[in-house]
């Protein structure tokens, strides 16, 4: 008899179902109420409509925010994937004193409250004259998503068989060829997966972002937050559903790539 059957019970299943409902219902309710015909987010019964999506597509401000979010997320994902991978290779493949302790530094962007990161960065970017708008947003999001890429690529690299590289070298390939034909192809899915996760982190970031935007570079989460403060309309739902779709699709692809 396996442990699986020994430790479960009907009551336990019930409680677990409730916890799952607690976890997932907020997202489900946002999606469901986006199809309402009313002017307030309500769950549609028979009157199912895409009215709010149509309105969304006609609203230039919202489309602009979507474009900004895409540009910022793509830019920061590329930077974050490169820097995170470099750091992960460095930490996995070398030994030096206090390596473990020092690697915690890579996780700081996750630990520090994003409000503090936000105000520290906006003041700092002012000092080093990095323009607000895209440059500030992309740099800010790169630093915020870095820990996720670092952790993901590091865990993939830890399972990498370095004998393959040695074999390639022994068989006469130089380091560049070895990287191009052996290391690269094996590690690149992890790097891509890291980039996708960075994209998702950037796409949803609000707290630090509110300090970094310029008037014409509001991102979607900032627009959603502003709309939440002024009154609930189903437009927020429609916009949220688009965001959810993009995030889930990108993150699922990342999960697929990273074994």
């Amino acid at each position, binding site marked *: 008899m396996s442990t699986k059957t020994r430790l479960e019970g009907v009551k336990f299943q019930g409680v677990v179902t409730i916890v799952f409902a607690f976890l997932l219902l907020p997202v489900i309710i946002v999606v469901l109420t986006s199809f309402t015909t009313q002017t307030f987010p309500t769950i549609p019964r028979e009157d199912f409509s895409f009215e709010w999506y149509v309105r969304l597509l006609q609203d230039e401000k919202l489309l602009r925010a979507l474009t900004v979010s895409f540009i910022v997320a793509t830019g920061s994902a590329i930077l974050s994937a490169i*820097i995170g991978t470099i750091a992960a290779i460095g930490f996995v493949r070398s030994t030096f004193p206090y390596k473990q302790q020092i690697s915690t530094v890579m996780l700081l962007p996750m630990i520090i409250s994003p409000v503090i990161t936000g105000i520290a960065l906006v*003041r700092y970017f002012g000092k080093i004259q990095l323009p607000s708008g895209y440059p500030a947003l992309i740099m800010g999001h790169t630093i915020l998503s870095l820990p996720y890429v670092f952790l993901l690529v590091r865990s993939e690299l830890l399972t990498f068989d370095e004998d393959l590289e040695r074999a390639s070298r022994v068989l006469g390939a130089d380091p560049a060829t070895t990287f191009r034909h052996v290391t690269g192809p094996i590690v690149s899915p992890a790097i891509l997966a890291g980039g996708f996760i960075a994209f998702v982190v950037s796409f949803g970031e609000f707290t630090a972002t509110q300090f970094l935007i310029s008037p014409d570079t509001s991102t979607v*989460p900032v627009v959603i937050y502003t709309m939440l403060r002024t009154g609930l309309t189903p437009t927020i739902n429609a916009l949220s559903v688009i965001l959810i779709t993009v995030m889930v699709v990108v993150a699922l692809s990342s999960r697929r790539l990273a074994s």
Partner: protein
Amino acid sequence: MSVERPTLGQVTHIVGDRLQGRISNHHLALLGVSFVGFFLILPIIFLIPESLNLGSSTPFESYRRAMDSIYVDAFVRSFIFGLATTAVTLSLAYLLAYYLTFAARRVRIVMTLIIVPLWIAYVIRYFGILLFLSPAGPFANLTGIDPGLLFTSPAVILGLANVYLPFAVLPLYNSLNAINKELIDASRVLGADKWWTIIKIIFPLSLPGLVAAGLIVFILAAGSFLGPAVLGGPQQAMIANVIAKAFLENFNIQFASALAIIYTILLVGFLIAFNTVFDIQEVLGDI
């Protein structure tokens, strides 16, 4: 006489050989750490001069003001809400992680269900909770029940627990999953019932995961801005909200910087204290 020009392949080989000699893996690690140093640690250190009123007779004015009771209250509230959220989140996460380890039949699908919310923007998830708690919202409409929780402390704590739940499940699942299943079988064979096995074998062995999950949830919850901003009222303002308000609404950069520095020092102090009891490296290794 013609000089033979190297092909692109040869060039990359030459560059590769040179790089191999000059750039070691140490340098790569250093590059990563410097990036965080230059774009996070240094910016935070630069908040120190911003927080001081240099040149005046009262350079520590902002720090004195931060001792006013409303700001001390915000710090205390962050701590208490952080603890309460950690308690709620850990109990729910333990249930899910336990289910995932010992009862779930399709682990990968269940795991994906738990992780999916993690990918979705916090602001959207808080919006969903807001819809649930809103007295005119779809839930109240459908059931006729108004939970009466919106803009109260329980609403904020429930919201934070909801949002950070997946973060807690992962380390817990890792440590539960690492338990040697034969230990559990042995305990059962030797006559211990289900609960005794959980108390004596499973729970003690899952403590590292519990500590890791607790640390990450506490840090995230105590520093949260969106939770109290969307689900709470003025009475629920946490430290992140107070800092953001000082900066964005009152344009008081000096005061916002002072609060940010105090908060960072408290956080570092907390981590050092935590480190004396548990090994933070080991704990973070679980994440």
